Every structure is written in C-alpha cells, then in structure tokens.
C-alpha cells in the first residue's frame, strides 16, 4: 500500500516538475527574440528623482561598500537621494555612518530597533523622490543598474522594477552553489516577468513608483518577508511588476550552511505564511498566471522537494539494511560482475533523466543570460550535486514552523 502511494507520488511530482521546466522553456523560446543579453542601455529621455532607502541593522562590515556603490551610480547626483535608516544597530554601524553627516546626497537617520519594515516605512516618510527604492545594506549596485531600471518605467503601467541579483565574490562551495542558484533566479524572474507573475520585489534594489505606496499602503511585517508581501499585494491590486535582467546588483550570500539554512527557512516561512494571507490569489484566473499556476506550483514544489528527500532517505535506508543483512548472513563479498539485465529501466528513471537534462538546459540559458555566453565551471557541479539535497531541510523546517505557528527570527 505504502509502496503504491509512494510510486504514484513519484510520478505526480515528476509530471509537475517536467511541466514546470517545459513551461519555462516554452516561455523563453517564445520571447527569445525580445530578450537581449546585457547590452548598451539607452540614455533615459529625462531623469526623474529617485530616493533609495538603505535600512541597516548591524551592518558595519558592508555598509560603506553599499553606500559607495550607490554614490558611484551613473545617475544625476541631484536626482538621486540616498537615505540610510539605522534600525537601532548595536555595533559600529552608526559610528561609520557619522562620516556622511555633512553629505548632501546621503541622509542618515537612526531609530530604535523595530524590524526592517519599520525602517522602510520610516524612510518612506522622509523620501521625496518620484520613485522609491530599497537597497539592503549587504548589497552593492553596478554603476548602470539604476539607468537600466529607470528605462523600464517608460511604460506608464509599470509600477515596480526588480533587478538581477548576483552573488558577491563567491569563494567557497556554498557560495559558488548559490551563484548558480542566483543565475537560475535571474532567468526565472525574467520568465515570471513575461508571465506577469513576479511575486518578490527583492530587498536588493527593487524600485517602485511612489504612488504604489499611496495606492496600497506601506510595508508590513509580513512574517519577516516584506519584499515578498508587497509584491503579492501589488499583484492582488493588478499593479504591474517587471524585471530588468541586465540591472545588476551583487549581494553577500551566506557563507556557512547554518546561516544559509536560517536565511532560507525565513524566506520559505515567509512565502508559506504570506501565501496563506493571500490565498485568494491561488487558482484564481482573475490574477492570471501568478494565481493560476506560478503560486500553486511554488507550493507544490515545496512538498515535492520534501517528498524527494524522504523517498531518497527511505530507498537508501532499505538498500543499507539489505547490505547489512547480506554482510551478516554470508560475510563480505566483492563482486565486479555487471549485467545490464539488473539495471533499472523504470519509466521514472527515464523521466528523471529528462528532468535533469531540462534543468541543465535552463542552467545553460541562465548562464548565457547572466554572462553573455555559456562556460563550464565547478559551481554547476556543486549546484547539481548538493542543492536538491539541502533545500528540503529548510523547506521542512519552515513547513513545520508554519503548521505549528512558530515565528522565524531574522538572524
């Protein structure tokens, strides 16, 4: 009975995975001609005023670099306002920020600690730009990022633009793995843009028309994922979000498994709980692809990843038990004999091979989109070898916390 259910689940999750990968690839090939790899950008006809908010809490290590990158932006200085909101840091962040006290372009504010969304709302009240954006204090923008983003606002319907987020200076295996994951994310977000289904406006450098906040209100606590909630709220109000895949922002990725686990658990917990808050979007064709397919698929993928981990554990445990029984029964045996007859040829094996081939295909396209051409490097191997095995752990933990209503801390 258990075996039969498990087999059905394997085929159902394989069907959903293949459908998803094919859906993305069809979207890509449909829009390929309009998709330019990072290219020369047009000079905007006019430069509207932009306010960038940098909320920070204990960011002494990266804040200077973040602000320097903003100061280096290729955008008229008199049109760019930078607001740093210190959210009650207990380290040297505020001391470091003292050097900008006399700056015309950077305004520093300090408030008691209340969480990122409170810092952003505080900043919103102080901003004056026609456009408002946010940059996390552990992220750095590329010089041309803002101009590339602002070009997308030529479409009067566009209410927010998200950038392409890359990993800053990846060195260890975990960071290199995330480098590939972020490249995948760049490809995925661009496809979501084509589908009108972007459901996160990431903390690193998403820019909004100011009127977004007067139309739908300020940032909310949103289970510590305010960037996800505001995007869902925008979608719920039919406000258009697009992606500028050539506007590059670098972010510091977690260096250890523990910090990565905590970050991703928070993201997943936020996604699950915001999904509950916005459940009316699900399977509702009024909201187009995001309601009908993208959000339900994101939930399905959480469950299928967890199921994948469980079935992997289960089959390995069964195999290990068989080997132990064999060892205990007839002692150690070394056999090099090989017979194709005993190689499994179940449909699930062929479907998994197709699934992996499609993943590799998307990885190649992602790299071409982010780097202009495909090149092989070890990070792809790290991603393929480890990613699927570690993801289910934070998914499971976030799911557990959601079911038992435990909140997940920031750090």
């Amino acid at each position, binding site marked *: 009975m258990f075996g039969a259910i498990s087999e059905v689940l394997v085929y159902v999750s394989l069907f959903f995975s293949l459908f998803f990968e094919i859906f993305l690839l*069809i979207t890509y090939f449909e829009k390929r001609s309009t998709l330019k790899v990072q290219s020369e950008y047009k000079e905007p006809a006019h430069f509207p005023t932009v306010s960038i908010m940098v909320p920070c809490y204990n960011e002494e290590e990266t804040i200077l670099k973040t602000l320097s990158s903003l100061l280096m932006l290729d955008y008229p200085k008199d049109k760019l306002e930078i607001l740093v909101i210190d959210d009650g840091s207990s380290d040297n962040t505020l001391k470091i920020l003292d050097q900008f006290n006399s700056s015309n372009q950077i305004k520093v504010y300090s408030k008691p600690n209340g969480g990122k969304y409170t810092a952003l709302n505080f900043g919103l009240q102080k901003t004056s730009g026609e456009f408002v954006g946010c940059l996390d204090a552990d992220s750095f923008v590329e010089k041309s990022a803002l101009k590339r983003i602002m070009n997308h606002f030529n479409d009067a319907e566009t209410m927010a633009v998200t950038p392409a987020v890359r990993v800053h200076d990846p060195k260890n295996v975990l960071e290199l793995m995330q480098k590939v994951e972020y490249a995948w994310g760049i490809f995925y977000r661009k496809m979501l843009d084509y589908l009108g289904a972007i459901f996160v406006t990431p903390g690193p450098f998403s820019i909004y028309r100011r009127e977004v906040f007067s139309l739908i209100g300020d940032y909310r606590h949103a289970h510590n994922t305010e960037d996800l909630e505001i995007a869902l709220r925008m979608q719920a109000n039919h406000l258009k979000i697009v992606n500028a895949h050539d506007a590059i922002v670098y972010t510091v990725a977690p260096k250890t498994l523990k910090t990565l686990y905590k970050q991703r658990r928070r993201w997943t917990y936020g996604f699950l709980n915001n999904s509950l808050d916005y459940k009316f979007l699900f399977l509702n*064709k009024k909201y*187009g692809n995001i309601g009908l397919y993208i959000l339900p698929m994101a939930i399905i993928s959480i469950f299928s990843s967890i199921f994948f981990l469980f079935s992997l554990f289960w089959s390995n445990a069964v195999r290990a038990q068989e080997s132990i029984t064999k060892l205990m*029964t*007839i002692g150690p045996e070394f056999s090099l004999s090989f017979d194709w007859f005993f190689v499994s*040829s179940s449909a699930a094996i062929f*479907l998994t091979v*197709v699934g992996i081939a499609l993943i590799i295909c998307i990885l190649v396209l992602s790299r071409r989109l982010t780097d202009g051409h495909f090149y092989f490097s070890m990070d792809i191997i790290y991603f393929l070898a480890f990613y699927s095995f570690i993801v289910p752990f934070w998914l499971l933990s976030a799911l557990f916390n959601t079911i038992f209503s435990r909140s997940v801390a920031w750090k």
Partner: protein
Amino acid sequence: MHEVDWKKYVFTFLITAIIFFSAITLSRYFSDKRVEEIRSIHDQISVNILSSEVQTALLEQFSCKEIGTTALSQELGSLGEKLSYTEVSRGSDDPEVMALKRNYSLLEIKDYLLMNRIREKCGTKHVFIIYFYGAKCEDCGKQSLVLTKLREDFPELRVYSFDYNLDLGALQTLISINKIEENFPALLIGDDVYYNYKNIDEMETIIPQLKVWRLENERQEKATTTAQ
C-alpha cells in the same frame, strides 16, 4: 491586465504527456526485452535438459563419462535470479512473468529428477537442496542469500527453489509427496525436511559433505597460491 495564455498551458501539457508516454513505452520495451532474454535462457535450458534426458535414456549403451552435468545448474541459478528480479519490477500479477515462473519451476523439477537418476546410475557426488519460500516469510531473503552463496562455492550442490503457493500441479505433487508444511523457509534435503532459517554453519552440520568440499577448496586454493 492579468492574462492567461491557455494555449501555452495546453501545449506544455501535450509535450509533458508525450515525454511521459515515451518514457513508459521505453520502459515497457526494455522490460519486454528482459522477458525475451529470460525466455531465450529458458528455451536453451529446455533443450539442454531434453538432451540430457535423451543421453540418460541411452545410459545403458554409453558410459557415464559422456554425460555433461556441471553447467546446467549454474544456468538455472542465473535464470532464477533474473526471473525473481523481473517479478519484482513487473509485479507478481504479470501473466507473462507467472507463466515463465511456472515453466522455470517445471524445469527445476525435471533437472532434479534427471540429476537424481544420473547420481544413482553413475554415482556422482551431487547433493540436492529443495527450498520452499512463501509470501509472508521474514527469513526467506536471508535463506536465499545463504543458498546462493553455497551454490556459488560448491558447483556440485544443486539448489532448487520453489514458490510454495505457485499454481503448478507437479510442484504441488512434490510438496504432498514430501509432506512439506506451509512454514517457511522449508528445506528438503535427502528425505528430511528442515524448517526455519539455517545459516551457513547449520547448513554444514546438516550436510557434512559441504565441510569436505570446503576443505578441498581451501587445499586447492593453498596449492595454487604456493605454486604462484
């Protein structure tokens, strides 16, 4: 402003369905290939047994030396392994697998009867184990491992394994003649029936000849090592 491109969903569904259909067809193709391979081994063994039967019938006119006897049980063993693998992958309700399994059991019985006659006529040193397993048997997996290992170590040991509940007249006769109870694993060695799991040491106690063969093997191995 939120639009749904239904055509894309249908198109994606069709492509996914085609991939699924192809994978299932491919899997079925390889599975059928396996059954074909089993059938061909089975046919080959049938011919070998028939040939041995004819040889045995001519025993009185020819000498025992001319009867080849060693390769057959190995082939039967590997056929058995492949058959049980196919039974697991295709399911024990697959009529093709069940038909092959019945044929295989018949071959085993024929081989057993033939080898018994050869032993009586020619005085060969073969030892026979008839092993019965059933569906609800925790120790049968372990017992199979022990018997496979013994068969590999000693070519003169002939192991015939039978699914107790297989719908096959000849098998049921074999069971009733020897009064085998539905208690697994059950081993018929000579005229005695042994129930419950028996490890290698216990098997060597039940069949002292195994110890003799083991010593011989060890002696031969030592001689080969010294010669090298």
